């Protein structure tokens, strides 16, 4: 910044000096009768004149640098550039008028350049030249900015070519002081050729006005009229201000201002024509631009908004502005049924749309959804097949509707827009509505996906908790009783089931086993399991018979379990001194018993209903307790349906029978070996398929 200020500080006095020196020279010339340089004048005088012209060229260049350094021309918008242009042109006119009135110039009009007749004329010509440079340079910068609105490498090339040829024209104009006449004769020929090249380049550059395309319709109309006025003003500018006064002071300034003037004139003329040609399509263009921006807005919102409820409000809200409808609403299908509901509306109350009646709306909606195409009803007359729309609301003259079809082809709903007038919608409105519907689908699909993934995350978390609860509830160590070996196995499925087993220490020689399965999965199953364990453990202090214990457990759990939840349980009590196992089965899988004496395994399934199914009367009536007198080598296998119902790829179940046979044929093996055999057997049966339910196995070998 300091550097910039410094250069401005230096430049201003230099510029002032560069103005004052030729000015002083002009005054001196006026009083001392030195002839103004013409083709006939001698070389000595011309040399001084060349210096003076050189100073003027230097002035212009330094002034350009000063402007570029002082003002930021680059980042101006189209509108700002145009405003600056009008101000500059106005100021130029104003300054020239003021000086003309004040100084009243008078010219000889005999030779070229004209000779000033009075001192005021000298002052006038100096100042007009100054104004020409002072205002024309920034004007050219502004026009350059407009041309560069949409630039290519060629734009730069032609611009450079223009600057170079203009500079050459200025130099040749100084060397051959002949007015541009396009006579292509004598010494003027070089001037004329160079000037023609400049003019061609100027016209070429004048085609570059693509900034006009992106103006709004209103701007196009306004700018067109302004441009006509400016063109007229420009036409007069040369004769009014430049023609005689500038050459009298400086030929360089004269050529420069003439080139600049042609450039402006041409650029304004072409802009004017462009504006005129674009007026008829301006409305359509405006609309398309609007559509693009609003669709962009919508897609931006979509990428940030994942709240389903907010989205369904946003879709008609954003669409109504572009489609210019009077009312809009969005209908969506309910997730569970195929019924449509009004998700959101604009300028029309939800209840009003509902009044329209399910049947009436449905006919239209079904037609749109089944054809998968938007529909346009522009004239809803009395005999129209959709005349009932009028009956519903008399101020609906036209209606358009588009379906929202999800990515997987499933219809999500419909988007409607209405207008009071008949023929209110154009076919391109339909395309627009469809675009909105499509964007809406993406938004809603995304929101649903995000929601699902959140849900999944939440479920994962829940599962993790459930697994943890389940793991903590299971016994940490196997009880040690003389002559009994116990092996337990639990395999948790991905979705935690409600499997549970436990040991009860009834007394020193009486050991209890419980195996259970809570209906349902996940956290609720895990918590019911926890509840069941607590109840059973505390009741076991007072009730030592399996049947009685189950009856009491059912009484308590029935009160607290959710109606649709229940627990299947099997309780057994093994008396180690009498070698008797008594057990009761409350809706659970049978007890597998291997009798070593008979060398046969069987499934014991006494009657009994699940815990929590019934408050107690039937439960008590149905529940039977059985006793088994056992001996060394006998095996009891407690299991859950996760084992018997384990499915392989073919959908076949592992089944009780497979387990029974396996135990029977391997009964001589130890409990641990047997457990491993069961695991192997199940795994080979599953053939890599994962379990869909928990699997629990409790092996007791006497």
């Amino acid at each position, binding site marked *: 910044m300091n550097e910039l200020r410094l250069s401005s500080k230096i430049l201003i006095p230099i510029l002032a000096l560069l103005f004052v020196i030729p000015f002083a020279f002009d005054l001196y010339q006026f009083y001392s009768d030195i002839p103004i340089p013409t083709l006939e004048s001698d070389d000595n005088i011309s040399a001084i004149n060349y210096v003076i012209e050189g100073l003027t060229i230097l002035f212009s260049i330094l002034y350009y640098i000063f402007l570029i350094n002082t003002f930021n021309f680059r980042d101006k918008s189209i509108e700002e550039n145009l405003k600056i242009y009008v101000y500059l042109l106005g100021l130029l006119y104003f300054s020239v008028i003021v000086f003309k009135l004040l100084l009243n110039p008078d010219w000889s009009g005999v030779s070229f350049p004209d000779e000033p007749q009075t001192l005021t004329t000298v002052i006038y010509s100096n100042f007009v030249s100054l104004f020409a440079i002072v205002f024309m340079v920034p004007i050219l910068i502004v026009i350059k900015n407009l041309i560069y609105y949409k630039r290519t490498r060629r734009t730069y090339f032609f611009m450079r070519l223009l600057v170079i040829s203009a500079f050459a024209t200025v130099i040749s104009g100084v060397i051959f002081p002949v007015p541009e006449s396009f006579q292509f004769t004598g010494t003027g020929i070089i001037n004329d050729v160079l000037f023609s090249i400049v003019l061609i380049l100027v016209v070429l550059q004048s085609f570059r006005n693509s900034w006009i395309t992106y103006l709004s319709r209103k701007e196009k109309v306004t700018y067109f009229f302004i441009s006509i006025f400016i063109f007229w003003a420009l036409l007069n500018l040369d004769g009014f201000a430049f023609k005689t006064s500038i050459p009298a002071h400086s030929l360089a300034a004269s050529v420069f201002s003439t080139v600049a003037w042609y450039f402006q004139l041409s650029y304004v003329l072409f802009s004017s024509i462009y504006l005129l040609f674009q007026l008829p399509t301006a409305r359509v263009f405006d609309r398309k631009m609007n559509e693009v921006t609003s669709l962009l807005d919508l897609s931006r919102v979509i990428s940030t908004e994942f709240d389903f409820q907010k989205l369904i409000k946003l879709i008609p809200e954003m669409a109504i502005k572009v489609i210019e409808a009077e009312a809009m609403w969005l209908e969506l299908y309910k997730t*569970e049924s195929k019924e449509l509901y009004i998700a959101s509306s604009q300028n029309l109350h939800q209840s009003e749309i509902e009044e329209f009646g399910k049947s009436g709306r449905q006919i239209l909606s079904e037609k749109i959804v089944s054809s998968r195409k938007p529909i346009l009803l522009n004239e809803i007359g009395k005999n129209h097949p959709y005349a009932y729309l009028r009956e519903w609301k008399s101020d609906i003259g036209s209606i358009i509707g588009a379906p929202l079809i999800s990515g997987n082809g499933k219809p999500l709903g419909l988007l409607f827009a209405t207008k009071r007038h008949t023929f209110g919608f154009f076919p391109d409105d339909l395309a627009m509505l469809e675009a909105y519907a499509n964007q809406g689908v993406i938004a809603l699909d995304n929101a649903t996906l995000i929601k699902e993934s959140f849900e999944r995350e939440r479920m994962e978390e829940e599962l993790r908790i459930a697994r943890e609860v389940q793991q903590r509830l299971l016994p940490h160590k196997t009880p040690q009783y003389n002559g009994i070996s116990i092996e337990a196995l639990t395999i948790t499925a991905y*979705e935690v089931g*409600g499997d549970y087993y436990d040991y009860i220490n009834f007394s020193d020689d009486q050991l209890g086993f419980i195996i259970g*399965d*809570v*209906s*349902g*999965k996940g956290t609720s199953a895990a918590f019911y399991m926890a509840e069941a364990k607590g109840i059973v453990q505390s009741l076991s202090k007072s009730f030592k018979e399996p049947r009685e214990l189950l009856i009491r457990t059912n009484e308590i759990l029935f009160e607290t379990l*959710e*109606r*649709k*939840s*229940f627990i*299947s349980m099997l309780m057994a009590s093994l008396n180690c001194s009498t070698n008797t196992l008594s057990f009761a089965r*409350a*809706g*659970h*899988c*049978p007890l597998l018993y291997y009798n070593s004496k008979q060398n046969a395994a069987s499934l014991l*399934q006494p*009657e*009994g*209903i*699940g815990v929590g*199914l*019934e408050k107690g009367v*039937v439960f008590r*009536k*149905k529940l039977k307790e059985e006793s088994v007198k056992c001996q060394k080598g006998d095996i009891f296998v407690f299991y859950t*349906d996760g084992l018997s119902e384990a499915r392989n790829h073919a*959908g076949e179940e592992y089944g009780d029978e497979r387990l029974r046979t396996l135990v029977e044929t391997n009964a001589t093996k130890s409990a641990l070996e047997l457990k491993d055999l069961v695991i192997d057997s199940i795994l080979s049966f599953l053939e890599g398929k994962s379990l*869909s*339910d928990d699997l629990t196995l409790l092996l007791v070998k006497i």
Partner: protein
Amino acid sequence: MENFEVAREDHSEVSILRLKGFLDAHTAPNFEQAIQELIEEKRFKIIVSMSDLNYISSAGLGVFMGFIEEIREKDGDIKLTNMTDKVYKVFDLLGFPALYQIFKEEAEAEKEYNR
């Protein structure tokens, strides 16, 4: 995921729900909704026919339990028919025959309602 379908058929006061496929924790809500609809329409005489039901899990059984109290209070019932042996085994294991009337054919259950 396994498929599950509920088809409904109304015979005057009695409604028959025919289950097909796999009834487990994932598909139970569909079945639940079907019964819920019947209750909303005050149709409490329900027959659940299961000839095409391949599998029922504890969550599926829970659906019956979830509604039976309310339906019986309204003098209705859920009667079960046309079970395959495999499905019957699951019901039997849990003791359902003590809580529900189970018939071989829909007609028998209907007759029982119209008695």
